[in-house]
């Protein structure tokens, strides 16, 4: 349901664009009376919550920030694969938003129904919020239509993706618990780019860890749409071979095209795979809010931005951060927070009539748990390259030399610290 700019203009001309009701009524429906300069942020995940906090902190509370998020609580996607092995529960990964109160962020729990880039307003069921600048951090939505037989309902009820931490993560763990010994857990990975590049391979490790201790005759079958393992290949294959010998089977170029829900079967171009647990991670695109804002690119999936400000290439005063952007950057929680800080600094400068930072330097680190105790990571610094108008990986980045329990502990520290940086 993405309205591109052209369609949006057409709709406006026809006078039926979202929010095109008489201006007096419009003024009345303002949810929070706007006095000074206001930034509205839609999406309170890693990116959105970070942007909210840092704009308040760095503007010395001069800029009003309204954060709109549909969920009551924050559930960390990073480390949620460990719920599958039983190392953590979903509760361990759940936080509330109370820690952001001290920054004076106005928080609204609700669902955005539309965005009007001309009027500069965000619509909710019960009214609207005017903005001077809007930051959207919509995360990803799933392109179920690319897999015949799959849809949101099926994903909720039986063939889970569990690629947003929450109810499906818990449900997938239950399926694993009721799987017979000797059974098959099939995990399907979409073509890159998708959220969390190493995540599916980490998941294979976490599932294998559970099976090794509980159902050792079982198998994890990875059906990867990509031609090869997309992240930390050597480290993951070493973990599979050494920790879970003969348990993890990897098949490249194996995109799932169709599912047979009644028979729990996945079909690739070459074969039908009947599994005891089918865990299909569908292809992804920018979350629906990006479509409402009309900032999705020609590919129909991701949003092009300026890397100095994260302002959309389509609409002025709308910034996009996190998984939803089109960039040669990993779609990770850490990366979303890094982008959020560049965006926060730039938004403040722009609103105060100053030039934004010309040399943004950001980092990403992804830890993956390969067992209950051991972890591996990939770490990179990315710097702005003016010639390419892109963020480019700096010298020296890379992966762990080998998996270790020391890094397992570091992964825990990383999670604690990043959640604190985002939410407190």
């Amino acid at each position: 349901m993405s309205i591109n700019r052209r369609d949006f203009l057409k709709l406006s001309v026809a006078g039926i664009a979202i929010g095109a009701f008489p201006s007096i009524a419009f003024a009345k429906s303002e949810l929070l009376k706007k006095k000074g300069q206001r930034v509205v942020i839609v999406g309170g995940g890693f990116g959105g919550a970070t942007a909210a906090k840092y704009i308040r902190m760095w503007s010395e509370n001069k800029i009003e920030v309204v954060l709109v998020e549909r969920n009551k609580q924050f559930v960390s996607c990073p480390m949620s694969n460990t719920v599958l092995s039983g190392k953590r529960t979903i509760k361990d990964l759940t936080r509330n938003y109370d820690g952001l109160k001290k920054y004076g962020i106005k928080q609204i729990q609700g669902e955005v129904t539309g965005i009007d880039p001309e009027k500069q307003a965000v619509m909710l069921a019960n009214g609207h919020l005017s903005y001077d600048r809007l930051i959207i951090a919509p995360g990803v939505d799933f392109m179920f239509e690319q897999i015949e037989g799959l849809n949101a309902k099926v994903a909720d009820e039986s063939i889970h993706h569990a690629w947003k931490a929450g109810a499906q993560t818990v449900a997938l763990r239950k399926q694993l618990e009721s799987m017979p010994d000797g059974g098959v857990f099939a995990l399907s990975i979409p073509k890159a780019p998708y959220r969390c590049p190493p995540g599916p391979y980490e998941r294979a490790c976490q599932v294998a860890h559970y099976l090794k201790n509980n159902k050792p005759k079982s198998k994890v079958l990875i059906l990867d749409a990509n031609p090869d393992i997309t992240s930390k290949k050597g480290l993951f294959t070493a973990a599979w071979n050494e920790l879970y010998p003969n348990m993890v089977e990897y098949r490249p170029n194996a995109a799932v095209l169709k599912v047979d829900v009644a028979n729990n079967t996945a079909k690739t171009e070459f074969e039908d795979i009947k599994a005891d647990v089918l865990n299909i991670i569908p292809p992804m695109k920018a979350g629906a809010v990006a479509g409402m804002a009309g900032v999705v690119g020609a590919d129909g999936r991701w949003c092009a931005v300026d890397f100095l400000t994260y302002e959309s290439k389509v609409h002025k005063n709308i910034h996009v951060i996190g998984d939803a952007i089109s960039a040669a950057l990993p779609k990770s929680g850490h990366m979303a927070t890094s982008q959020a800080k560049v965006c926060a600094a730039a938004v403040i400068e722009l609103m105060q009539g100053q030039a934004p930072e010309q040399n943004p330097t950001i980092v990403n680190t992804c830890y993956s748990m390969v067992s209950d105790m051991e972890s591996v990571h990939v770490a990179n610094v990315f710097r702005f390259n003016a010639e390419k108008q892109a963020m480019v990986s700096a010298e020296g980045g890379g992966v762990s030399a080998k998996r270790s329990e020391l890094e397992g502990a570091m992964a825990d520290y990383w999670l604690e610290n990043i959640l604190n940086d985002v939410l407190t």
Partner: protein
Amino acid sequence: MIKKYLFVITCALGLAFPAIQAQAEVDKHARNLAASCAACHGTSGHSAGGTPVLAGMDKALFIGSMKDFKSGARPATVMHQHAKGYTDDEFSLLADFFAVQKR
């Protein structure tokens, strides 16, 4: 002392604003660089646990550590990879930023 007089004079001439502004720009660049470290070392270097607290860290010790991570002289799980992404000048900017953060 001379600097102080110069400052008074520039102020009197109404020229201080650009100077102050330039100063603030430098600080913001350091602040922005340092924000990258927060995911592991906490907001403004106030670690929530496990990783070292960078807030209030001695400047020389900080720069020495970063250089040793970069060269490989100091073993690390992850800092060697981060340190290599920054210049020595940036190490000093970062050191200045963290040194003045209250512990």
